[in-house]
């Protein structure tokens, strides 16, 4: 009712009403970035006014980058599945949860080794993570075959995919609940996780450095795949224009398979790392879903590099806001950022303005 949506085609630039012009300026990419920076600046100012020291802010920012690294693993898979397969996958958070718990299961199968160097985990943890990535990737593809392929053949609306993905999410979560109960748990219960000084009194746990490094490594692998392999290029092509991809002779079935395998594996890695960083809880993925979607929309749907940037921004905003806000509101803050993006630049930072 208060919408200023008109049915007339956009007027040429010369005849813009002032409101339209302001809207257009606000919608530019520069403005988008400026607004984001202003949001972060505002957070810092508010934190400052609340008497939070610069040092603490810096250390929160560092933690935000690490959280962003974890989020990006989920967000990249989510944006690929969204962009390439046109599925708004509300099960993605729960794929992360499932990945984390599978990792826990696999760790339990193996003899517990000594911690590697300064880290809290042994080699068995790395093997378990790789195993979990493989399983979740395959599970994602199987779910597609059982559910989404049928909907695709029926040419269902994107919303129907969204709804079925919620069904999938609930099933995954019920299995986690049944297998491990509702309580939180750790990969290595009771093992000390001391922190070390990074610089300027900023303390991090070695695990967190490992997590960031691994996230960056996996993202680099994704980059290689997308830019330098035939399948990666075909995935980007399908994201660009699925109809044209089919007409060109791209084997869309294989594109679907690889998108799920990559998206699922990254989600599992993200889940395992999130579990290592804090703890494993059946709701962990569900709570991450909102920040994930915020990252994806911020970085433009279908753009994996955008998702990385979006995840870093969301991670930093989440952590710095916790200087003066109950950390429980982290997902809420991410949501607020998303609403801002939707208001001013719904196509995301890297999208083409409509």
């Amino acid at each position, binding site marked *: 009712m208060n919408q200023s949506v008109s049915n007339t085609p956009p007027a040429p630039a010369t005849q813009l009403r002032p409101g339209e012009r302001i809207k257009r300026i606000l919608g530019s990419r520069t403005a988008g970035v400026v607004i984001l920076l202003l949001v972060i600046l505002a957070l810092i100012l508010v934190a400052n006014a609340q008497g939070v020291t610069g040092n603490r802010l810096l250390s929160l920012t560092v933690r935000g980058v690490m959280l962003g690294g974890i989020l990006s693993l989920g967000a990249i898979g989510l944006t690929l599945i969204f962009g390439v397969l046109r599925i708004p996958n509300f099960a993605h958070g729960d794929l992360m949860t499932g990945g984390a718990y599978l990792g826990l299961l696999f760790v339990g199968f193996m003899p517990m080794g000594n911690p590697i160097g300064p880290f809290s985990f042994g080699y068995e943890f790395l093997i378990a993570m790789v195993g979990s990535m493989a399983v979740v990737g395959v599970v994602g593809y199987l779910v597609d075959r059982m559910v989404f392929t049928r909907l695709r053949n029926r040419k269902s609306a994107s919303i129907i995919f969204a709804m079925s993905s919620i069904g999938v999410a609930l099933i995954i979560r019920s299995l986690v609940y049944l297998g491990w109960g509702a309580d939180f748990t750790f990969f290595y219960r009771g093992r000390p996780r001391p922190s070390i000084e990074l610089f300027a009194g900023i303390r991090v746990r070695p695990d967190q450095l490992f997590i960031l490094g691994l996230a960056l490594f996996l993202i680099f692998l994704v980059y290689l795949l997308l830019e330098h392999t*035939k399948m990666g*290029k*075909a995935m*980007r*092509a399908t*994201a*660009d*224009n699925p*109809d*044209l*991809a*089919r*007409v*060109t*002779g*791209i*084997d*869309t079935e294989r594109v679907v398979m690889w998108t799920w395998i990559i998206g699922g594996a990254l989600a599992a890695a993200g889940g395992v790392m999130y579990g290592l960083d804090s703890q494993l809880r059946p709701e962990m993925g569900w709570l991450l879903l909102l920040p994930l979607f915020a990252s994806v929309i911020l970085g433009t749907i279908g753009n994996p590099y955008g998702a990385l940037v979006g995840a870093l921004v969301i991670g930093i905003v989440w952590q710095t806001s916790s200087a003066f806000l109950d950390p429980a509101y982290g997902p809420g803050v991410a949501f607020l950022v998303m609403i801002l993006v939707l208001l001013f630049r719904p196509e995301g930072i890297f999208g*083409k303005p409509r």
Partner: protein
Amino acid sequence: MQLLKVDSITTGYGEMEVLRDVTLEVAENEIVSIIGPNGAGKSTVMKTVFGLLAPWQGSITFDGTDISGFSPDRIVREGMCLVPQVDNVFPTLTVEENLEMGAFVMSGPLKERKEKIYDIFPRLAERRRQRAGKMSGGERQMVAMGRALMLDPKMILLDEPSAGLAPLIVDQIFEVIRQINDSGVAILMVEQNARKSLELAHRGYVLASGMNQVDGPGTELLDDPEVARLYLGGEVVSAAS
């Protein structure tokens, strides 16, 4: 020798019949143009030939194989490629990557094939690292055609190659079409720009209300008084339409 034979196909969307008893043939190394008013079902013919729409009745034979009911990627393997009308490049892929996608069904190195395309379209060679979405309409049309040629097809389908292009560019594109044909590729095209496409084509079909109305050599159709009255007469076929 017949390359493509479309034998009295009838098809449509849902309940709605769009084509009735459409029959057409394309010989090897021939340019055939389908013209007709808007809504006559020209694009539907293309979609049906290319397996995007199943024929209700009739059959489609390509190079001796019955391809009715084949999926697009199988048809591509048989040696037929389609250049759609709009949105016919992958905008965020580079020109080179766009070409590579044209050869997705093939394994092995593509360097030679790409070089061959760059010989036909020198303009694309200069811009091989540029994203296709950032190019002009004419350049995109070249990318799309180049991509279709990557597999060395026996035949390509062009859906309104002149749509949305400036007149000068249209001339260039038509010249390129002739050049492609000279290299031994048969061409079936659908065009709004009836006069130009009939001048180029060896033969033409006039499609109206979903049925073949007239067919014959391109230049003869141009002179046909009925065709002239129906589709060429008062209609100034502007390329920008």
